[in-house]
Each structure stands twice: as C-alpha cells, then as structure tokens.
C-alpha cells in the first residue's frame, strides 16, 4: 500500500509546485495517524481512528466510504477547521494551522451560501478577503459562475436557487480562489446525473489549468475513478483507511474492460460484490 503511494508520488505528472527552488514537500498533503473524536452534550464519539495517507502535489485523491464514517470530518481537519484529537495533518510539510488558511479552497456538503448576498457576491467575497479589489473580484466571480453554468443567476439571492445550483455556486466559490489545495465535499451530490457528467468534464479541464492538490469526497464510485489519481476507501465508523487504490489513465475510459475491473475492485472494497446482474 505504501509502495503504491511512493510510486504514485514519483509518477506525479509535472507538478506545478516544484518550480524554482522547491521544497521537498510543497503542495503535498499528508495525513499522519490522525484520530478524531467529537465530545458533544456529554457524548463522546470516536469518528476517525488512525487515518494515514498522503497526496502528492497536483494529485486528486477521492475519498469514498459509508455515510457517517467521518469523510467530512477528514476534510475539516485538512482545512484547519478542526483540530485532530491526535496525529497531524501536514500541508507543504508543516502542520495545518487552525483558522483561515490562504492556500485553501473548499466546497462544503451543505453549500453554506450567505443568504444576504447575491450569488455573485457570494463568490466574490472570498476574493475580497484575500485582497483583490472589487472590480477584479467581480470579474473572476463572473468567470467562474459562467464555468459552472450559472450566468443567468449572478444577481439572484441564494433562496432562489435549487439545491444543485447552490452547490455549484459553492464549487465556483472554492475554485475562484485558485487554491493550491482544493477540498470538495460531495460537490455534485445534489446535481442531476446529466449536469453531473458535464460538471465532471468541466472540472477536469479546470484542474488541468492550475493543477491544485485535491481531496474529493464522493459517494459515486464511477466519479471517483473518472476524477481521482487515487481512491481512499474508508471503513465504517470509527473509520480508518481500508485501502488506497491507485487509478491509472487507461482505467478512466468507461468503454474499456480496465474500467470495469477497477469499478468492480473498488466496489468490492466497499462491500459490494459485482455478481448482482
């Protein structure tokens, strides 16, 4: 398993991060023996139990696992929104700080749009807090809203949007920050199947432009194969990493037998056998 990871790391395709005098760990996300428990109203729930994996710079890791196993928690830890109970999450080789992190863009499972701002402002506000002037922030926001297909809704308020549209705004907001680390929590879950395929295409071409390191939570195994360089399969709560499955380029072709094999392999890890036809 760890050999897989290392080979993937060396295999990494022209990582943008290693320009100039690169530090060895730049653009790399490392989760190291992370434990997490929630203590709430006297109840103590262990959610993550000794989770470790590593994503090399510019790679896309898809996290799959049963719901409630702690995938969102994992993203919260990588984003510096939560502090692990034990273990460390490293970005660029240093532990992630609790609080705002400028290298970061994240789309949440609940879109979390500010209801008092128009769609455009919702996307622009992050750029504004990161120092862009008003006009520039607005221009970039418009550009990314076009990309996710919301050009007609820029002046709408979030309450006018459907669940899928709100989620797309959330994605645009994360992408517009042009983050070096992109965290996505089931971003296409509320989107209809057809739009989802289109968004996956768009998403891939956008990634090709800036090559961020990506941690992508999804329920959809075909989606994980289509987008991921590796798939992190989580076990039930308290979750640890069950397997890490590398995805090769030829396995992404949905017409190929390699794809079918990968799909069966991944589903088997999740406890789904493929002889149900």
């Amino acid at each position: 398993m760890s050999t897989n990871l290392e080979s993937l790391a060396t295999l990494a395709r022209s990582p943008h991060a290693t320009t100039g005098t690169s530090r060895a760990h730049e653009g790399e996300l490392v989760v190291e023996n992370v434990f997490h428990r929630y203590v709430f109203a006297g109840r103590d729930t262990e959610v993550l139990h000794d989770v470790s994996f590593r994503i090399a710079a510019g790679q896309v890791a898809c996290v799959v696992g049963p719901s409630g196993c702690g995938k969102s928690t994992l993203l919260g830890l990588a984003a510096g929104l939560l502090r692990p109970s034990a273990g460390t999450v490293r970005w660029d080789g240093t532990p992630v700080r609790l609080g705002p992190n400028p290298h970061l863009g994240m789309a949440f499972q609940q879109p979390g749009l500010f209801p008092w701002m128009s769609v455009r402002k919702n996307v622009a506000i992050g750029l504004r807090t990161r120092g862009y002037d008003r006009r520039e922030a607005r221009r970039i926001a418009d550009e990314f809203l076009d990309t996710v297909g919301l050009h007609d809704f820029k002046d709408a308020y979030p309450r006018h949007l459907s669940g899928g549209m709100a989620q797309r705004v959330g994605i645009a907001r994360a992408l517009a920050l042009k983050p070096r680390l992109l965290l996505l929590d089931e971003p296409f879950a509320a989107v209809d199947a057809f739009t989802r395929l289109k968004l996956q295409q768009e998403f891939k071409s956008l990634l090709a432009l800036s090559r961020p390191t990506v941690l992508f939570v999804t329920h959809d195994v075909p989606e994980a194969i289509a987008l991921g360089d590796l798939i992190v399969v989580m076990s039930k709560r308290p979750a640890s990493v069950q397997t890490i499955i590398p995805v090769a380029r030829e396995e992404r072709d949905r017409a190929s037998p390699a794809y079918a094999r990968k799909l069966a392999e991944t589903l088997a890890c999740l406890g789904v056998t493929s002889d149900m036809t």
Partner: protein
Amino acid sequence: MTSTQAISRRVLLPAIGVAMVLAIWEATVVFYKLPAIVLPSPFAVVATLVDLVQTSAFWRDVGVSLYEFVVGYAIGVALGVAVGMLVGERPMFRMAATPVIESLRFIVPFAWIPLTILWFGTSYAGKIALVAYAVFFVMVVSTARAIAQVEPTLSRVGTMLGMGPWRLAWKVHLRAAAPMLASAARAAAAIGWIAVVAAEYIGASAGLGLMITNAATSLTTSVVIAGMIVIGVVGAGVSALIGAASRAWLDYR
C-alpha cells in the same frame, strides 16, 4: 373567499366593531349623565386632541419623550448588541456573564425608576439611562441567542474564505443573526417607550407621561385619554419605522 366577503370581513365588520364601541361609550356618558371628569364623550376627546396638537407645549412634551427614548434606545441597542456578541462568541465570557445578566434581568426596569431619580434628578439623563437599561437586556439576550443559532456551516465557510474571528463575528455571525435582531429591536422599542412614559409619571420636568399625570391630578380626563392615544400612536409609529427599516435591510429574504 370572494372579494366582497373579504372586504366585509376586513373592513366592514371591524368598522362595525369600532362604531359599536364608540356608540356604547357615548351612550354610557349620555345615559348615566357622567361628568367629563369621570368619562368625557368620544367627541370631547377628539376636540381635546385637536386643541392639543395646536399648542406648542404639547409638541414640547412629545419632543422630550421622543428625545429621551431615541438617545436611550440607541445606547441600549449598541451596548446590548456588543455585549450580546461577546456572550455569543466567547463561551468563557458567556459562562462568566450569564449569572450576572440573569439576576439583573429580574429587576424589571420600572424598579429602577426611583434610583434613577436619586441619581439623575428629573433630568433627561435619568430617563435615557432607564431606556438604555431596559433595551440593553432585551438586546443582550436576543443577540447572544441569535449568534448561538447561526448555521455552523456559515462560520466554516467564512474561515475557509480567509476571515479571522473578528471579521467572522462582524461580517457573518452578526449579519446571519440580523432577522432575529430586527424582531428583538422592535420588542425592545416597545419596552423602552413604555419605560420613558413610566419614568415620566414619577419624576420629570416635561414629557408625555408628565402631561397625562398632570392632567389626571387636575382631573381633565379628556386630556388624559387624548394623551394615552398619542402615546399609543407614537409607540406604533416607532415600531412601524423600525419594522420598515429592518425590512429594507433584510430584503434578501
């Protein structure tokens, strides 16, 4: 429901109700030959109201009461929201402040009136302090509660977008709490306005409360009733104004 029915329900029947009340009032006065000291006829009250609004003393009383209210209200809202935010944002502060706030809250503002008179005499300052006190507690409690109820995802989004704790509190939590704050601000205005009137009953040199207690002492009952109507109308006006302002502010809903 057809529109004629709607009109009859919304307009005609309430009009009948008002007419009935006025008729009973007038009939009582006429039938029992009540002296104007006990109960003036509705016409006498209207006449008094018309006379009142032509005197400068009346407008001075309105102005004084409104001035005391507005200044006290502004202070109370500003301090109340500020402390309420601290209570809502900082668990340590909340734990330390809650017992003090809860025990002071049970001393209703009216009980402070004698003390404000001892401290500030019959000046405006006493009423301003009283209104500020009354409004403060309403706003502290509602603000803290509203901040605690803000959708946690919004905080995470704010942090993700690069906001520090101050900016998050100011730009996200306060704004998300705005609808609850608006209704609290309206409730606080009603309480503050009544506090002004009550304080003026007991020690004041001018104001609507003083006007109607003086009228009561000199048994000019029509002025008392006219004054009550004015107090009610001003209170309703203030409330409507705050309602309109908050609706303009919350137009995204």
